[in-house]
């Protein structure tokens, strides 16, 4: 038989759609199938067990088929279950087929199965949506109750031992327990499957991001480069540069804008800040990088001060910065082709040069050299030895 065709029926169902599905697959009127199951119920409960097992084993109806709702048919189902119970009690009381000591464990098993079933149903329903992570405690409680009831019923069955019905009952119990365990384990498997597909989606998202990076590289970065070349106004130019840097950092660095944790990132942030504040263009060259420590942080601070001086006083639109860092030494060169100055004529109380640059570098074991002359531009060299620190 075609395995794909045997599944629980959605539209033609009374309880779980087992009979509807079987009828569909076998080409028989489902009413006949139901009759078969009903007749099997008094035979030591085989009908119930077979039905539960089928419900657990047969795949769910195809998602696109309409499902006849259980809601609104509660009475019908309750009536059905009641009828079943009365039949069983009557049969048992008249000692026809099922003695009471079989019926009680059967009832326990049925309730356990019911609990397990409800769990299976809700779990599979939740497995499809994103909000399936329900309180685990409730889930666990329900699972434990179901197991206890199932095992209790099974033990009661098995304890009878000896007579003929007991052997059959034990077999039934084993089947019912197996079905119950299947119901319990099934949803968890399904959930694992859901997790796996979630991971697959995540991978797809990552690939999508890579594709997007390639695309942005081809479009946005190119356009920004063009804007910079055309450069009608300095404002547009500055905006383009800043936009380009931000995008670049996001695409290739994946770094947060507020938390630079490497030397190069920290210096780039300082540079961008000065660019925005003073309307100046900084050519930043930093071929090497290292994790940021307090000494490198001080170096970045001094470099920012030198940049700010160049932006404020040099009177040119462009500043060149080279930053290098190795295990032995870190250095930053800040250079402009502006008007330069005469050190002797800088007022003594001007904090920028003396305190923020020279003294700061000295505190961290480094030094600052300033080369300048009127009309010849300025270059600030900041050298920070790192030899003794690994």
């Amino acid at each position, binding site marked *: 038989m075609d395995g794909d065709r045997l599944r629980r029926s959605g539209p033609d169902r009374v309880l779980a759609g087992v009979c509807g599905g079987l009828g569909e697959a076998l080409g028989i009127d489902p009413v006949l199938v139901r009759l078969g199951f009903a007749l099997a119920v008094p035979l030591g409960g085989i009908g119930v067990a077979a039905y539960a097992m089928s419900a657990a084993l047969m795949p769910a109806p195809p998602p696109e088929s309409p499902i006849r709702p259980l809601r609104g048919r509660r009475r019908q189902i309750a009536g059905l279950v009641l009828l079943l119970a009365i039949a069983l009690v009557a049969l048992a009381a008249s000692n026809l087929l099922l003695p009471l000591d079989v019926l009680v464990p059967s009832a326990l098993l049925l309730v356990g199965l019911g609990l397990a079933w409800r769990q299976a149903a809700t779990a599979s329903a939740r497995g499809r949506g994103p909000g399936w992570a329900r309180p685990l405690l409730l889930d666990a409680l329900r699972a434990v109750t179901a197991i206890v009831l199932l095992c209790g019923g099974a033990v009661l069955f098995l304890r009878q031992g000896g007579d003929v019905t007991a052997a059959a009952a034990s077999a039934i119990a084993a089947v019912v327990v197996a079905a119950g365990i299947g119901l319990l384990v099934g949803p968890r498997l399904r959930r694992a499957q859901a997790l796996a597909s979630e991971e697959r989606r995540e991978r797809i998202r990552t690939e999508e991001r890579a594709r997007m990076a390639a695309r942005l590289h081809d479009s946005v970065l*190119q356009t920004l480069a*063009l804007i910079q070349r055309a450069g009608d106004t300095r404002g547009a130019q500055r905006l383009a540069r800043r936009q380009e840097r931000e995008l670049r950092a996001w695409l290739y660095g994946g770094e947060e804008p507020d938390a630079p944790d490497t030397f190069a990132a920290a210096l780039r942030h300082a540079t961008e800040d000065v660019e925005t504040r003073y309307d100046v263009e900084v050519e930043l060259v930093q*071929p090497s990088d290292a994790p940021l420590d307090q000494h490198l942080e001080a170096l970045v601070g001094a470099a920012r001060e030198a940049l700010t001086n160049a932006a404020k006083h040099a009177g040119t639109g462009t500043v060149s910065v080279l930053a290098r860092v190795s295990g032995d030494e870190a250095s930053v060169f800040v250079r402009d082709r502006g008007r330069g100055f005469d050190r002797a004529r800088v007022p003594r109380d001007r904090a920028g040069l003396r305190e923020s640059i020279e003294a700061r570098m000295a505190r961290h074991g480094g030094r600052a050299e300033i080369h300048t002359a009127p009309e010849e531009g300025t270059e600030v060299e900041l050298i920070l030895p790192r030899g003794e620190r690994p």
Partner: protein
Amino acid sequence: MNVPLRRVVIVDDHEIFRAGLKAGLGPTVQVVGEAGTVEAAVPLIKSLDPDVVLLDVHLPDGGGHAVIGPVHSERPGVKFVALSVSDAAEDVVAVIRAGARGYVTKTIGPAELTQTIHRIADGDAVFSPWLAGFVLDAFNEGDGPAAGEGELDRLTPREQEVLLLLARGYTYKEIAARLHLSVKTIETHVSNVLRKLQLSNRNELTRWAAKRRMV
């Protein structure tokens, strides 16, 4: 003015960028051809025989280095400059090792680009500050007594000095003035560095390049 007219081919897959480049070049540079793919560029350059090719590092059907090889064998006089927006250093290094005479970023100003084209046409090498900084650090890394390398694998102190000033944003003229050398000597030093970059077998070059981006 006795500046010779330079014939240039632009190879870049972005039409809008080619148009922008063309518009900014001065009267001493004539764009004789354009191509957007490796496949189109190779026969075009062979037939036009330009002085200089501006070559995008990335092309849709391969890296820019794929253009240089086939052209070189037939037209050894054609000189290439690598041009890029933001590329992995290893791609830039690949184009240079394939034979490009220099590397500039696409944000270079029109006047500077015109100057670069003339310099390349004259047989000089052109390093952007970024390339200079990269080469300097790549050659320095792992230096030690144990490194048994040939002349090609090491930069002379003078070459390092020149590269450092290039990376700091100095022009050739400024470097010459600062080191008390002639511009011609500076050009020779840079050409030597380019030769070492193209011929050196240093592992560091590739290793370094793989980790970095040139802006």
